[in-house]
Each structure stands twice: as structure tokens, then as C-alpha cells.
């Protein structure tokens, strides 16, 4: 099946993808934690035509232990950004390694309400044992156990989103009932390490379920809307996307992870990287593409990826420098050449991504649809 034009996401945590990005930021370090900064970056991303911003997070501060960098929680930033924008999707990272899935579900459902259907969730994992100590919980050790907590958390969260049917608030003056209890459902989840009863305390999100993004392979693919994939080359990335989105129980969409450092009026990408390498290394990862060079080259790379992936998540070297070039030279060219599409005002994030709004699995119809899927 041919894929429509690319959807564009950008990671806006901190000052950029490089650990020393703050050295080249256009503001004083403390400005990072102000509301003005959050609103400004979001406005630039929205005006540029990105469909989605992602916001990395952890209970541990970024930076090394002795030199922590400040970071406001991703859900709080996302809610603030949602209220400062009107089209942009917002995707905080949340890990259920230690967090309560019930709270995570409420937070994301609420984010979907405050954004009128623009919320997404990047499923994360807390793999540093220091996170367990910060939470005050016993450590979840080993990647299998962490994957289990991610999977169970995701299941609980999705079920809680479904636990209120869309029309559960009936406001029936004649019968004096605000709710119809037959349209509210306990989730009765029982996993290996805990159980959750439900229903949610938040009515069903406008999108039904906020969009779920997760690194391919972390959690069962059928629970994920957008698999985040990568590779060392465009061909490898395309193969990873094909693997993530084909076959039974696959994720419907795959986005490629790309680190980008662009030539700017103030310095070439290489010069800027060299400048930052004086402070800290920017280690390449085998599961991410990295593009370094002029804007036109990034347009070519994305053109090459178009058709192989459904979208990309860009991780700019320095937000204050690279976002400007993306806005002025890269995204306009992508839109003109129909390599990428910008979101339409007034639509939900699901609509912008071409994803259907799911029925609650607890509705009569939802249960029937689920049964059909399972027997297919």
C-alpha cells in the first residue's frame, strides 16, 4: 500500500539533542525553565508545520550526576504547550516502570481534553537504578522485567481510557441521572506484579485513545499506533519500518528517528558540532539516522525516506539554531514538493496521522470489533 506524505515530529526537550546544546542556546541557561521558553519553542514548531512535538522526561535530571540540568515534567510542559498552541500534537514521555498506571492514564486523558484531541504518549522506560531510589520503590531489574512493566502499564492505561464509553455522561434530567453506569466499566487488570480495578476518574479522551508511540520492540506492536524505528542507513530504516508495520498485530505507522545538525548562517553543522564536542561527545547510535550538512541534503534524505516510513522524528542538535533552519529552508520545501504534509487546523492528532478513532473495547460494538480482529 503506498504511504501518504510524511508526518513530521520534533523532539523539543531541553536545548537540543547534543548534551552540551545549552552552550549554543540563544538564551541564558535559566531561561530554559520559564513559560516564555516553552511557549516560544512550541510556537516555532507549530508555525513551521510540525504535526507533533515530543518531550523527553525522567524523574532523574538530565546531565551527569554532579552537573544536573533543570527539567520541568513532560506532562506539565505538554499541557502548557497545548494551551499555547492550536494545531500541534503534544507527546510527553512517560514510563510506567515505577509510576502508577492509574495516574499516567488520568494525566494523558486530561492532556487530550485540554488539547482538544492533540495528545500522544511516547512510552518510556526508566532503566537507571537511581530512578528506583528517586521513586522510593524496589528496582525493576533486567530488560525483560522493564518491558513487562511497560507492557502492563500500557495495557492498563489503554483500558482505563476505554472504561468510559463516549456517551457515558447522559445528563438525563427526566431520570435525574448524570451518568449511565452501564456505560462505565471496571478494567479489572491483573498482571504479574499488580492489579488495577477502574474505571477511570476521567471521561473518555476526545480521541478515544491518545496516540501511542513506542520504540519498535519495546511493547506488543498491536498496542502501539506509531512505532519509532531507526537504522544506520535509509535502507535499513525502511526495512525496520516495514518490519514494524507489516504482518498480524503490527503497528499501523512507523516513524524514523533522525538526529539533525544543519548548516546555519552562523556556522556549518560540522563547525557547530566541533564547538560542542569540546564539552561533551555526541555519541551516534546504530538505531538512529544522523544527518549533518546543508538544508537541501536533509530535504533529499527525507525525500528518499518518503514512501518507506510514515513520518520522522527529528532531534535537532541545538533547538535555537536548527529549528530556525528547519522552519525556513527544510519544511517549506518538503510541503511544496508534497514530501510531507502539515496538520489541518481543527483536526485531532489521530486525524492528522490518518488513524481512525477507536471504539471503546467495552462497548457492545467495540467488543464485537475486537472479536472480529481476534478471529481474523
Amino acid at each position, binding site marked *: 500500500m503506498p504511504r501518504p506524505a510524511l508526518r513530521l515530529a520534533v523532539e523539543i526537550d531541553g536545548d537540543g539533542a547534543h548534551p552540551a546544546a545549552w552552550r549554543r542556546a540563544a538564551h541564558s541557561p*535559566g531561561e530554559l525553565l520559564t513559560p516564555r521558553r516553552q511557549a516560544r519553542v512550541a510556537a516555532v514548531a507549530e508555525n513551521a508545520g510540525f504535526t507533533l512535538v515530543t518531550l523527553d522526561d525522567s524523574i532523574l535530571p538530565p546531565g551527569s550526576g554532579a552537573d544536573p540540568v533543570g527539567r520541568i515534567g513532560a506532562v506539565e510542559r505538554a499541557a*502548557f504547550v497545548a494551551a499555547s498552541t492550536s494545531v500541534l500534537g503534544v507527546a510527553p514521555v512517560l514510563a510506567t516502570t515505577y509510576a502508577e498506571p492509574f495516574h499516567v492514564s488520568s494525566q494523558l486523558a486530561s492532556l487530550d481534553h485540554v488539547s482538544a484531541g492533540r495528545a500522544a504518549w511516547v512510552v518510556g522506560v526508566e532503566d537507571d537504578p537511581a530512578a528506583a531510589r528517586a521513586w522510593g520503590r524496589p528496582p525493576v531489574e533486567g530488560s525483560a522485567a522493564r518491558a513487562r512493566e511497560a507492557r502492563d502499564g500500557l495495557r492498563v492505561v489503554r483500558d482505563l481510557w476505554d472504561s468510559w464509553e463516549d456517551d457515558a455522561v447522559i445528563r438525563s*434530567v427526566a431520570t*435525574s441521572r448524570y*451518568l449511565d*453506569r452501564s456505560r462505565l466499566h471496571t478494567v479489572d487488570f491483573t498482571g504479574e506484579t499488580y492489579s488495577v480495578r477502574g474505571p477511570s*476518574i476521567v471521561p473518555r479522551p476526545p480521541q478515544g485513545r491518545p496516540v501511542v508511540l513506542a520504540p519498535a520492540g519495546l511493547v506488543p506492536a498491536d498496542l502501539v499506533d506509531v512505532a519509532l524505528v531507526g537504522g544506520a542507513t535509509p535502507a535499513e530504516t525502511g526495512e525496520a519500518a516495514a518490519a514494524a508495520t507489516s504482518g498480524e498485530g503490527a503497528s499501523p505507522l512507523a516513524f524514523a528517528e533522525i538526529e539533525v545538525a544543519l548548516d546555519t548562517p552562523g556556522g556549518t553543522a560540522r563547525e557547530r558540532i566541533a564547538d560542542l564536542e569540546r564539552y561533551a561527545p555526541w555519541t551516534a547510535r546504530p538505531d538512529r539516522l544522523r544527518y549533518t550538512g546543508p538544508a537541501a541534503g536533509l530535504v533529499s534524505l527525507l525525500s528518499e525516506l518518503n514512501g518507506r516510513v510514515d513520518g520522522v522524528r527529528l532531534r535537532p542538535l541545538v533547538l535555537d539554531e536548527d529549528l530556525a533552519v528547519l522552519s525556513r529552508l527544510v519544511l517549506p520545501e518538503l510541503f511544496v514538493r508534497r514530501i510531507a504534509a502539515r496538520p489541518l487546523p481543527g483536526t485531532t492528532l489521530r486525524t492528522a496521522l490518518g488513524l481512525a478513532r477507536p471504539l471503546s473495547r467495552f462497548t457492545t460494538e467495540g467488543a464485537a470489533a475486537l472479536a472480529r480482529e481476534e478471529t481474523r
Partner: protein
Amino acid sequence: MTRTDPTDVPRPDARLHFGVFFQGVNHWTIWSDPSSGSQIDPASFLRVARTAERGLFDAFFLGDGLRLRESEGGIHELDVAGRPDSITQLSALAAATERIGLVSTSNTTFNEPGDLARRLAGLDLLSEGRAGWNVVTTHNAWTGENFRRGGFLDHADRYRRAEEFLAVARAVWNGWAEDSVAGSVEARSWSVPGAVGRVRSRGAQFDVDLTPTLPRSAQGHPVIFQAGDSGDGREFGARNADVIFSAHGTDFDDALAFAEDIRRRLRAAGRAEDALRILPGTEIVIGATEKEAEEKARWVRLSQVTPAVALGIASRLWGIDLSGRDADGPLPAEDPVVARDKGTFGTRWVEDPREVVARWRAKAGANGWSLREAVIELGPQQRGHVGTPAGLAEKFARFVRHGAVDGFNVTPYLVPDGLDDIVELLVPELQERGVYRTSYTGTTLREHLELAPAV
């Protein structure tokens, strides 16, 4: 009504502080009225918060409840239910308001201090020093069924946990010294070396070791609110709170007695008498004349306590399903069934039902009340003030100038426009009497409340 001579009173210069409590989840919010809006649409929250800000309120409050209430073996259907996570909703409001304080009710039993303190600190920074935290506790295992931790807390431990929780939260908020962020991109590191302290706490409730992620805000850290009315709750408030959200603000003598009790406890805790603000929750019903106000109050009560709501409350009191009965008829002839308590949570009666029913019968008989009227007069009480703008302004001036209250946390019975009368009619009357601000003089919630700097 005579005007109080401001020079005769203990606090002639006192100013009234208003908060607004966007309640959700109870029968005091009239959802049946045509003007009643959505309880989840962000526009409703924005409308209330902006109206309050126009009225120079100190704070906008959101409640919290971690399990849907149940009655008669199922989800309770009659009242408003379903609301957003408060910190998430308030973080959005931080972007859409300028001055008003944003107060989240968050539970110490089903949260962890490292996480919650961080979320609240984030709200505080995003709002530039306007965040507050209404500290609540829960002990029941029924709520715990929604959490991986489960229902693990003894009743007696809930304030112990809350107190330890708060101590860890304060340590997290104070973990970064003043001026701990580098002044320029040329600095040696992002945070000033040695300025960020690690928080290690090992107590009966928590074993935590973390590096805080955020510096202090414009107001230091979030303002602490507390609402518990039990002896333990009052002690906790006197030791820890900046604001007490009390249930004693309708009757002047009761309000004054409560305030004096709190001041006694403050002294005993080694704190100054004016170290905290007392803001009772109240409904305010306004009419152009006393008669119009009384009529409106009657309409409010009858809209809140519909026949079905009255029968629901009476069913829980009697322990019998009264749903088929006539609420506007006499009280049920049966005696209450005492032993019954099968899965009725969040709506449970605490007193011995036999005593309550005996009292109801006596009063209803003497006054000729129907069951519904008995529920209105004697059932769960919504505390309120009813009157004309001028009359209420005189009354509130007396309350605040005598130190019976520092203000009120207003609970609108209609959402989203239930504050309009108060802001447009009552606030100007208060301003005329010199008991209400005419503009915001500070930018932070702590400044609005005239509290000492955070420690």
C-alpha cells in the same frame, strides 16, 4: 444592618481573600440547568478561572478523587462525576491566565513524594509562582484497588505519611540553592557546582534518594493548603499549612471559634498567629433583594437535592432501597438497617443511622417537612451565604475584620458562569468598603495571600 465602624474591630485593615473551588463530583453542582456547561471541556475551566481573575481572586482550586463513587452496588449516577487530573489541567490554565493562583488537590497516600513534588514544582515554574497544593489523605483499601501499591495504609498512619511526604517534598523544593543555575553559556556547568543538594530520606513511610530536577520558583515553592477538620487534620494544618480550607464559615461564632482554635494550635506549634490563612468553603447566592436571594437559594437547594438525590441520600441513611418512594411525601416509616454496608463507598454515612433518623423524625414532625425537605435541611449540608451584594459585603467585612475568616473559597453551584454575580455585584461592594483589593499587588500566590516568604 448597621455598618461596622472599622476602628472598633480587631483587624480594621484586613482584606478578604477569595478562592474558587471548581468542584465536580458531588450534587452541589447543578447540572440539570440549561446554563450548566461541560464538566470536562477545557473552555469551562478557562471561563471560571478567567472570571475569578477578573474578580481579583487569589486562587483557582481543583479537587481530586481517585475512585468513582459508588452506591447501591454500582457507580453513583446522580451527580456530576469525571474530571481532569488537576496538575495537568492547571498547567494548561497557567498558559491562559496571568495572575490567579492555581491549586491542585493531590493525595499523599497514592502518590510518591519525589514524583509529586516535581510535578508541583513544574506547575509553579510554568505559572511563575502561582501554584498551590491542597494536601489530602486517604486510607481506604477501596481506593487502593486502583493502584499498584494497593490499600496499604492504616487510618492512623495517613497523617503520619502526609507529614513525612510533605517533609520530603519541601526538601525536594529546597534542594537547589538560590542562584544555582549558571548565569551564562560560558559557565563551567549548567548548574553551579555544589548548589544542587541530593535529597536522602529514610523514614517509616519513605526511603528516597534523589537529585531534585528544579530550582525554586518566584514564590519559593508551592503554597500548602489543608482541609482536614478532625483533630489530627487541624494539628497537621497548624504545623504545616499556609492556608486552611475549612468547613467553618457560615455562622460567625462557629467561624471565630474555629479560627481561635487554629491560632491556639499555631502558637503551640511555635508558629505566628498570622502564619496561615483560613478560607472556609462557601456557596454564595446573590439576589437584588433579600427576598429574591431567598427565593434563589430555595431554587438552588431544590435543584441540588432532586427527588432522586434525596431518595439516594435517604437510602444510604436508612440502609434500604427507597428509590420507588415519594421524596416529597413523609419520611419512611421503617427503622434504619444498621449492619448493612455492602460496597457503598465515597457516599457513606458516618454517624449511627438510628440516631440520625430519630433526630430527623423529630425535626421533620415539628416543621412539617417532607423527606426531601428533611434531606435539604438536615442531610449533607452545603454551607452558604444568601443575600444582597451590600448585605453580604457588610457581613463578610465583619467576619474578616474580627478574624473569624481570612476569606472564602467559593463553590459555584453553576458551572461555568456561577461566579459572574459574585465578581460583578459583590466584589465592587467589598471594594467600596475597603475589604477587598482593587488590583493585584503581587504576582505570586504567596503574595496574593499575604503570606511570609516560603521556607
